[in-house]
């Protein structure tokens, strides 16, 4: 482009020419763009202003980056922070930032952007859905353009983990207002356009500061209907559907030489959440009876067509600190009936089961209703939309039982919240979590996490069903997609064609 002639030609040739041009430049480097299927369309594209998982599924690691990031195995890796040091008291984190980083609109990234982003997330008028991640931050100080110091009010064992969330990405003051519709980040992909109701397109960022990506770009196509998703995959309109909504179709993909089924794990503990203050579920014997009435394998087979790992507590089985407690609540209808009788419900009782939209809940709910009917508990099912579920169950606590997958990573701490919708209140448990939060020693942390897992299993707080599997489909030859989901994302940085 040094010669004026070329420039004129480029201008005249407009899009067609420049596409050819960049294609030629990319030859040997970038593979063709991929089309990724997603079930839900993000309501907007600013991960710091909404909770919808679909936002992160488009922008996380692709468009926006934080100080740290999740790798596909769940470990924490440096991102915009090249390295960091932690003071001995665990209260001061000093991050050394990458230099020469530019936002997609051409503005420079430096320490002031970090301060801006963290201060904005914890401000009084913040609309960050995970504001709690930033609660421990007391002050953010710009040392020089490449160094930033974060002072905490109390030692926080997983602060680096918190900074890896999509809600903690670093945004620029210049573009923050328009991120919802035109996201501007520092990532290896640039936003191209969003055809509402249909797709979001991104393209490789030629000026990326780090190692570049191996594909020209990507299109995220929103196909909520499972049949349509199946048809779109089968007709090869899509290259991959990383979280395929209909497990029943996976066998067909597995049998088809064109496709590959990718099965991994998620952070989603799928549980029969129980209102611990609502009679008769305030009686631990009733909750234990429910636990013994549940046949986990039948639910996994019936609702998930075999995909999923049984769990006996609220903890991910792939975590090294996991304890297998499924034996403690094995399928034993006899014992369940005896426990019910002991609690004074020999003739059973009826209760409500409120189900949110995902198929694990809707299908699992029908199966659980049938299983509890065996021991005399009649469940009245009502299917709710998410907004109604949030209002009635989550906020209003107006429910007996519900099924939901808790997909936040490492979230056993929710049992320490008195006002959480399980309505479980236990001082011993709270003490364990309080200690865990301020403990940095790994051995002690493992001990505490295992004690916490046992505690909630002993109290039969909820019915623990299974760890949600991440079942995806991709064309053979498309490599580098995340197998597991430490957070809900479609990280395309390593995706390539073979």
């Amino acid at each position: 482009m040094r010669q004026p002639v070329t420039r004129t030609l480029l201008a005249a040739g407009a899009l067609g020419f420049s596409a050819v041009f960049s294609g030629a430049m990319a030859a040997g480097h970038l593979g063709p763009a991929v089309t990724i299927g997603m079930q839900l369309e993000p309501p907007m594209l600013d991960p710091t202003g909404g909770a919808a998982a679909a936002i992160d599924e488009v922008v996380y690691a692709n468009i926006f980056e934080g100080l740290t990031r999740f790798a596909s195995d769940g470990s924490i890796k440096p991102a915009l922070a090249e390295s960091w040091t932690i003071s001995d008291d665990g209260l001061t984190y000093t991050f050394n930032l990458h230099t020469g980083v530019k936002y997609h609109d051409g503005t420079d990234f430096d320490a002031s952007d970090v301060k801006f982003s963290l201060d904005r997330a914890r401000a009084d008028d913040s609309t960050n859905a995970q504001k709690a991640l930033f609660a421990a931050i007391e002050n953010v100080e710009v040392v020089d353009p490449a160094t930033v110091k974060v002072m905490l009010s109390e030692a926080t064992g997983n602060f680096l983990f918190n900074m890896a969330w999509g809600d903690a990405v670093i945004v620029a003051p210049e573009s923050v207002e328009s991120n919802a519709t035109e996201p501007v980040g520092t990532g290896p992909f640039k936003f191209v356009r969003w055809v509402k109701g249909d797709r979001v397109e991104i393209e490789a960022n030629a000026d990326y500061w780090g190692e570049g990506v191996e594909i020209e770009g990507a299109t995220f196509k929103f196909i909520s209907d499972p049949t349509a998703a199946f048809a779109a995959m089968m007709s090869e309109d899509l290259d991959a559907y990383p979280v395929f909504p209909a497990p029943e179709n996976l066998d067909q993909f597995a049998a088809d030489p064109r496709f590959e089924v990718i099965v991994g794990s998620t952070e989603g503990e799928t549980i029969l959440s129980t209102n611990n203050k609502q009679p008769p579920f305030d009686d631990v014997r009733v909750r234990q009876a429910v636990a013994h009435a549940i046949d986990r394998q039948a639910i996994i087979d019936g609702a998930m067509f075999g995909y999923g790992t049984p769990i006996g507590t609220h903890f991910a089985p792939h975590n090294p600190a996991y304890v297998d407690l499924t034996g403690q609540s094995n399928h034993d209808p006899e014992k369940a009936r005896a426990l019910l009788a002991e609690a004074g419900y020999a003739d059973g009782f009826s209760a409500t089961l409120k189900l949110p939209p995902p198929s694990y809940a809707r299908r699992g709910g029908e199966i659980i209703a049938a299983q509890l009917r065996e021991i005399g508990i009649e469940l009245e099912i009502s299917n709710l939309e998410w907004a109604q579920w949030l209002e009635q169950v989550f906020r209003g606590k107006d429910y007996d039982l519900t099924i939901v997958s808790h997909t936040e990573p490492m979230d056993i701490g929710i049992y320490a919240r008195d006002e959480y919708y399980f309505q479980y209140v236990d001082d011993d448990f709270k003490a364990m979590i309080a200690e865990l939060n301020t403990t940095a020693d790994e051995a002690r942390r493992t001990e505490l996490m295992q004690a916490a897992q046992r505690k909630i299993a002993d109290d039969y707080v909820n019915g623990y069903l299974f760890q949600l599997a991440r079942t995806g489909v991709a064309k053979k030859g498309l490599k580098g997609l995340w197998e597991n989901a430490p957070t809900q994302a479609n990280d395309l940085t390593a995706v390539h064609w073979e």
Partner: protein
Amino acid sequence: MSDLPLVRAGDGDRGVWRAASSSRSFVAGFVVTLVFLAAALVSLVWTPYEVTALSIPDKFKPPFGEHLFGTDQFGRDIFSMVMVGARTSIAVSVVAVGIGVLAGVALGLAAAANRRGLLDELIMRSNDLVFAFPVLVIAILITAVFGPGVINAIVALGVYNTPVFARLARGAALSLWSREFVLAAQVAGKGKFLISVEHILPNILNLLVVQGTILFSLGILAEAGLSYVGLGAQPPLPSWGRMLAEAQTLTAIAPHVALIPGLAIVIAVLGLNLMGDGLRDILDPRVRRAGR
């Protein structure tokens, strides 16, 4: 959901031959309707299998084996579910048409009795207003406020049916108000209410029966549509529309799971429409006159 009521005009003049053939369609429709009605009634006391009993190992059994219509993804007997589904469909439609008839006819008669008065204008404008809301929008709104369920599906369809009957009743009643026997009753000092009930209503009954049958079949289609998008019957109560929704991802694995409930809807609606057409030929005075 796809039909438009009130617009299917009479089939014009017909000879004796036509009358015979149309009564044949009535007989065929009547038989089909009876079969579904019987299935629905029998399902109250007996079904081949328990509809709520799951048996995961028996899932996707093909039809015409141990299970007449095969089994679904949970190993439930589809034949039993179709029987109970018939009950759901019929119950929803009957009540929805009932609401429409009661409210609509009352409004229509009141409007006709006060023709070209303020009340008439008010009723008819409100009618137009309600009629302007698409039935699905009504259903979505009702469900959003009260939560999904059979009752709310019924209310949505009832609300949708009301203006249809109101218009029909008003139109038919208007022409009767200028007839001699009504004038005579007026001269005799009878009030508007009594005249409406004693003289007008019996004379528009035929029309209402015909329209009722058509809206009844529409109701079955609409209930299926609402349940299909999750606004109607809730599990474990079987409903044809929900069976279709649940079967949608399974068409490639076990087509019968999606085909059978769909066929049930088609046959039931077809039966009702045939019966409705037959009824119109028998009851509609205009067609009868033309037939003579």
